[in-house]
């Protein structure tokens, strides 16, 4: 063994490299506060590793990104790896902020370490850029809409905002070109820059030595390894265990596939952008650029200039009340804005409340019109409920009307479907892709089917439907069951001028009762 190492030493000089890397002398009194840089390094390593492995399965196209991420989280190791990568980003941001707080409190940015400080700020910016670009990649609703907001904020850049937005967007709209673009930023350009900056940051750190405690301690310098390395390792172990708990407990949430036509979705940014998001709310209209660009710009400028604004020789925070106080106020403002943003974040409605009648009605129609012939556990296609569809409405409508269009010679000839049924089935399948069917009472399903087949042409319920007849969303507050039953069966018997056709011949008694009871329930 010894001889093998001696041989390696003679060929590579690895012992010298090990000595140079590990035996750095640290000033006496270097303590636990100085472990944060190593924690960051460990977290970045986890991000780089898990990220590299995620690309084994991920496909950056709008048609496949969502499916590939769903495939990744389909197994325990996949859930873990994506969990580590997802929550690792949050851990990184927290560790970065703590590291920065330590550097400011200890005055470590002071001469001769200005360049180290600047490279650290650049690293902070890079990590946020990673987070923004990575957010889009799962191509789910959250990803898509957060990116819409990001690009629109970029558009506010004074002078050339459209150029910046165009650069980020790639194509005419957020789509395939945006996704590949952000993907290559996320996995090629940003990592290259990150590694270069980390090397620079570490080289600078070693060049000037670490700043050490604020007041010099008596005693000898100690080697990094194993004295400080032991503290680093202990903290890193605790942090990584915490990260594993997150990754293990909460599988990273994947929402429905991105749907640009969904007008009901409320975009939410990742939590560490909530402060910025909140700030925008205080600058409405043409002042928006102040919240989006000016305030953050001033903060960044102050941070960049910090080593030159605070030039006194002392690093002791008690002797630098102005700088430490200003930083504390700024920090409190960010925390406060984030807390406000967290409090104001849109609440998601209970699943059952987001289903429209047409979507509910589509369920029975899909069962009746033979979808299950192919879409069944032992059929040639997956059951409708098993896998959310990432297809657009036109594709789905075409497929419902003529399944053979997709699979010639493979499927049964389709049952002829009326236009409204097709629309309802498409609505149902698209809703399924965002949310599992919550289950409704049988009467509600019956009423929904009748509504989606007959009433929707003329009557609005919950913002959906034709406008020729009166809106029915709250009709139950005005009329009762007996009235609805009589009116729907034979409108002219109730009102001789009625334009509505009678449904006595088209609805069974049970159906009539179901729709009348449903309308009565709409208070």
């Amino acid at each position, binding site marked *: 063994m010894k001889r093998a190492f001696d041989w390696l030493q003679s060929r*590579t*000089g690895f012992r*010298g*490299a090990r*000595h*140079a890397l590990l*035996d*750095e*002398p640290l000033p006496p009194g270097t303590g636990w506060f100085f472990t944060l840089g190593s924690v960051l390094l*460990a977290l970045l390593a*986890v991000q780089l*590793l*898990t990220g590299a*492995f995620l690309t*084994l*399965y991920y*496909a950056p196209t709008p048609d*496949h990104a969502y*499916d*590939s991420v*769903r*495939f990744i989280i389909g*197994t*325990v*190791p*996949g859930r*873990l*790896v994506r969990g*580590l990568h997802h929550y690792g980003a949050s851990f990184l941001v927290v560790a970065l902020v703590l590291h920065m707080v330590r550097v400011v409190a200890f005055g470590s940015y002071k001469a001769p370490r200005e360049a180290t400080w600047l490279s650290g700020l650049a690293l902070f910016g890079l990590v946020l850029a990673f987070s923004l670009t990575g957010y889009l990649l799962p191509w789910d609703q959250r990803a898509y809409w957060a990116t819409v907001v990001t690009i629109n904020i970029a558009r506010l850049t004074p002078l050339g905002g459209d150029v910046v937005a165009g650069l980020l967007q790639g194509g005419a709209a957020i789509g395939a070109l945006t996704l590949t673009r952000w993907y290559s930023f996320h996995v090629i350009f940003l990592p290259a820059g990150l590694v270069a900056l980390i090397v620079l940051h570490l080289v600078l750190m070693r060049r000037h*030595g670490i700043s050490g405690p604020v007041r010099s301690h008596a005693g*000898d*310098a*100690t*080697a990094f*390894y*194993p*004295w400080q*390395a*032991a503290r680093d*390792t*202990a903290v*890193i*172990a605790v942090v*990584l265990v915490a990260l594993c708990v997150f990754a293990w407990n909460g599988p990273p949430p994947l929402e429905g596939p991105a749907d640009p036509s969904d007008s009901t979705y409320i975009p939410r940014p990742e939590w560490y952008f909530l402060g910025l998001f909140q700030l925008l709310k205080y600058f409405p209209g043409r002042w928006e650029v102040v919240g989006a660009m000016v305030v953050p710009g001033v903060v960044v400028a102050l941070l960049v200039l910090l080593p030159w604004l605070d030039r006194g020789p002392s690093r002791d925070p008690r002797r630098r009340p102005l700088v430490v106080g200003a930083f504390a106020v700024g920090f409190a403002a960010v925390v406060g804005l984030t807390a406000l943003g967290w409090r104001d974040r849109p609440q998601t409605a209970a699943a059952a409340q987001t289903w429209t009648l047409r979507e509910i009605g589509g369920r029975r129609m899909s069962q009746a019109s033979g979808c299950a012939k192919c879409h069944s556990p*032992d*059929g*040639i*296609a997956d059951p409708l409920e098993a896998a959310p569809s990432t297809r657009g409405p036109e594709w789905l409508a075409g497929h419902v009307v003529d399944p053979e269009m997709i*699979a*010639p*010679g*493979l499927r049964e000839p389709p049952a002829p479907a009326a236009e409204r049924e097709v629309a309802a089935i498409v609505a149902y399948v698209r809703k399924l892709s965002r949310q599992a069917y919550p289950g409704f009472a049988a009467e509600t399903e019956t009423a929904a089917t009748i509504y989606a087949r007959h009433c929707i042409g003329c009557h609005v319920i919950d913002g959906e439907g034709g406008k020729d007849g009166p809106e029915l969303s709250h009709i139950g507050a005005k009329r009762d069951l007996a009235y609805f039953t009589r009116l729907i069966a034979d409108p002219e018997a109730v009102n001789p001028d009625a334009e509505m056709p009678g449904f006595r011949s088209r609805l069974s008694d049970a159906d009539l009762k179901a729709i009348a009871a449903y309308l009565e329930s709409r208070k």
Partner: protein
Amino acid sequence: MDWPPFPCAAGMAPGSQKGFAMHRRRALVLFVNSVVALIGGGLSAILGAFALRPYKGAEGRWVRAGALADLTPHVPVARVLAISRQDGWYRERARETVFLVWDGGKALHALSATCTHLGCQVRWDVAATRFRCPCHGGVFDAQGNVVSGPPPRPLARVEARVDGGEGVLVRL
């Protein structure tokens, strides 16, 4: 060859490395090395399991392959079937060739056209009543058994059945 010595390593006092400190040092080295090994091992295990995700073959599905009326007894008929196959996250529309072989009575079987040697697609030679592989001269009889050439195994059997006395279904 050696790397340049660390510039201010001289600042380290030799005294601190003696006695009790030496003991402590050994304990810390053990701690650091084992925790780092543990973290590395854990990460490698997770990432390894992730990369080696076991391939799960999709359940076969019955596919219509034609009608009994189109078949001639003992003459294998090639059918190119479109099947939809799950390939990880991707639903693939694959084409696969199978030969339907009917004995004129009740028995019907289907053979995969993929040669068992290196995977070329075999053809039915009507004159010789043999399957021939164009690649390295493999020859199979109508039952799929190897007659000559390098193929190590008979042609793979594909499950087949007659549906209601009419249509032929194969499981792919």
